[in-house]
């Protein structure tokens, strides 16, 4: 009986509602459409736009390699952001945390140049994680001690992180040689990730990213800790009543999230570069945030979303070279995707609550009729009350 009812409910689902279940995909499609219409100002037809974009991102092994390289830090940031968002923590300081991770990689490689080969990369990752935790820990401290919303502090820390990196690569960490761009000395070869020149310079960071995706996905969905974390995000009150400490979970999720974003920065530095450069990965942080949203704040959803954004960035850069369309249009596409995903999710809730309201109204009406039928004339007060409710 119950099963049958459920089936009936499913059949009733309208086409729009089914569509809205896939709001991240719809958002991505709409964002791309807006971008493709916008490039018509440059005299490029939407069809050419998509063709060039695809060719730029997947057209050759070199293109595929750079798409995946570009996706690597986005996957790690996306997974880290997903943990924070699932816990209800608004970490939007990915950009700053990323640069701090890069600084950590530079510090390890330049201060401990004699580390043996097996230890060097793990050391960098661990130190980056710690640096990121400390950096996002500032925002956590502000929140826990002073009740300041982490939105403001993480945002400000983005600027602090960016300028800290610039100050270091122009000052104490600056290269001893004369270079055209602010950067550090070249790292020792044992600190750099292995890469494959005949497969588009793909570096092994992608495996680190995949491992992090698997670990965070396992943690969020298959461990008690992950369940508590998600519960806190959905309802801090429910989490508290069932014996959890929302503050503790907030602190934990922010620290892990900041740590992972920093790891992304370190991987980017030792994978795509051979030294620490000023603003080595600007835009990566907010791209990662969009990736987390596009992946429905689920590490396994982050995987395709990260590759999508990696392809978008690589494709747009290739297009800028071939057709002269500025790659900043990507910001327009990214922003539209964010707005449309959120709009779709909200529209779904809106329609659902409309339906609920209808059911409630029908119930109220039936109740009023039943009261009237059973009590005949009934007490005037009761009738008035129920009528009042109906009007509302």
């Amino acid at each position, binding site marked *: 009986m119950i099963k049958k009812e459920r089936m009936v409910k499913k059949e009733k689902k309208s086409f729009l509602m089914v569509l809205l279940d896939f709001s991240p995909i719809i958002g991505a499609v709409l964002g791309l459409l807006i971008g493709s219409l916008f490039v018509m100002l440059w005299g490029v037809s939407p069809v050419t736009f998509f063709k060039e974009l695809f060719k730029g991102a997947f057209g050759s092994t070199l293109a595929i390699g750079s798409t995946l390289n570009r996706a690597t830090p986005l996957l790690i940031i996306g997974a880290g952001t997903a943990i924070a968002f699932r816990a209800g923590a608004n970490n939007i300081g990915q950009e700053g945390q990323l640069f701090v991770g890069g600084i950590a990689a530079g510090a390890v490689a330049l201060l401990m140049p004699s580390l043996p080969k097996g230890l060097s990369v793990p050391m960098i990752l661990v130190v980056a994680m710690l640096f990121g935790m400390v950096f996002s820990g500032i925002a956590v401290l502000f929140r826990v001690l*002073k009740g300041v919303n982490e939105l403001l502090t993480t945002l400000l820390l983005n600027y602090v992180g960016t300028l800290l990196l610039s100050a270091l690569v122009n000052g104490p960490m600056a290269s001893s040689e004369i270079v055209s761009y602010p950067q550090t000395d070249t790292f020792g070869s044992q600190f750099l990730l292995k890469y494959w020149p005949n497969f588009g310079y793909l570096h092994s960071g992608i495996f680190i990213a995949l491992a992090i995706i698997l670990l965070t996905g396992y943690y969020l969905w298959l461990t008690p800790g992950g369940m508590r974390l998600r519960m806190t995000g959905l309802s801090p009150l429910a989490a508290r009543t069932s014996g959890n400490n929302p503050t503790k979970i907030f602190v934990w999720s922010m620290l892990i999230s900041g740590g992972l974003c920093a790891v992304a920065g370190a991987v980017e530095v030792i994978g795509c570069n051979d030294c620490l450069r000023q603003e080595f990965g600007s835009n990566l942080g907010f791209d990662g945030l969009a990736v987390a949203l596009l992946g429905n704040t689920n590490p396994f959803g982050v995987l395709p979303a990260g590759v999508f954004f990696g392809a978008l960035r690589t494709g747009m850069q290739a297009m800028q070279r071939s057709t002269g369309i500025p790659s900043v249009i990507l*910001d327009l596409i990214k922003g539209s995707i964010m707005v449309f995903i959120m709009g779709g999710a909200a529209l779904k809730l809106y329609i659902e609550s409309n339906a609920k309201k209808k059911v409630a109204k029908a119930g109220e009406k039936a109740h009023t009729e039943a009261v009237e039928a059973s009590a005949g004339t009934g007490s005037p007060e009761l009738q008035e009350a129920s009528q009042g409710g109906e009007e509302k």
Partner: protein
Amino acid sequence: MSVDFVVEFLSSTIRIAVPIILIALGVCYSEKAGVHAMGAEGYMLIGAFVSVVMTIATGSHFLGVVFGILAAALSSAVFSAFAVYLGANQVICGLGLNFIMLGLTSALQRLFWGTTGVPRIEAMNPIEIPVLSDIPLIGPMLFDQPILTYITYLLIPVAWWIMFKSTWGLQLRAVGENPSCADTLGINVARTRSISAIVCGVFCGMGGAVLALQQVQSFTENISNGRGWLGLIAATFGGWNPVGAAGAGLVFGASEVLQLRLQMLGNIQISSYVILMLPYLVALVFILLIGKGRRHPAAMGKYYRKQ
């Protein structure tokens, strides 16, 4: 430390603080009504861009400012359709709006002017107010400024009066604190909120116009460069009170002028990037100092829908 230096320092503080103050005023309105103003940076960008384009196209600063404000108001109306009426996540939508505006203005700038950059436009000349500018110290500091600065002086008390003394201001504050209670009193929550969000757009658009026409005298990519966020912090520090927010905006302006002066001195041991960090560090210290004393409006960021 001569008197001239102090006067010069303070008058440039006011000049630089004006856009931040305008944004802070706008943010006060939006957030007091319960709507996160994360899109301030984006409104500022589009306001600056459109005002520059229209000033160049029509040759009139006045039309430039008007169209800049209109463009920002339009984008805030779109934002409030998503965030206030539909109930989409205000923070993410605001951030998304910033990216849309950044991409839009940077791309259009390159489409219109290619790689040469936007031409410089004529400055809005400072206007000396006859009697007031003769007052020693304060005169040259306050009353030898371009027209939009004077309008900002007027807007601060007006914004305060509307928020705390008018009926609509009371409704706005009620909607930000307890929307369901306001609703039972017959206030249209969604409309009040979206009007406040649009007011925020108007202020931010004007801030962008001031930045582009009075200060930079041109448009450069990402011209706002974090000023929107500083305005947001200033509003928070001012306790969402227009007068307090303007005061906080002045402090940010002063720290930015200090940073510029320190850079000009040149022979200082500190890295210029550390000096650039100054406004943000000042903001962080601010936040730390105010702490729990500033409780944000209770319903900030919460979607309300009529039952």
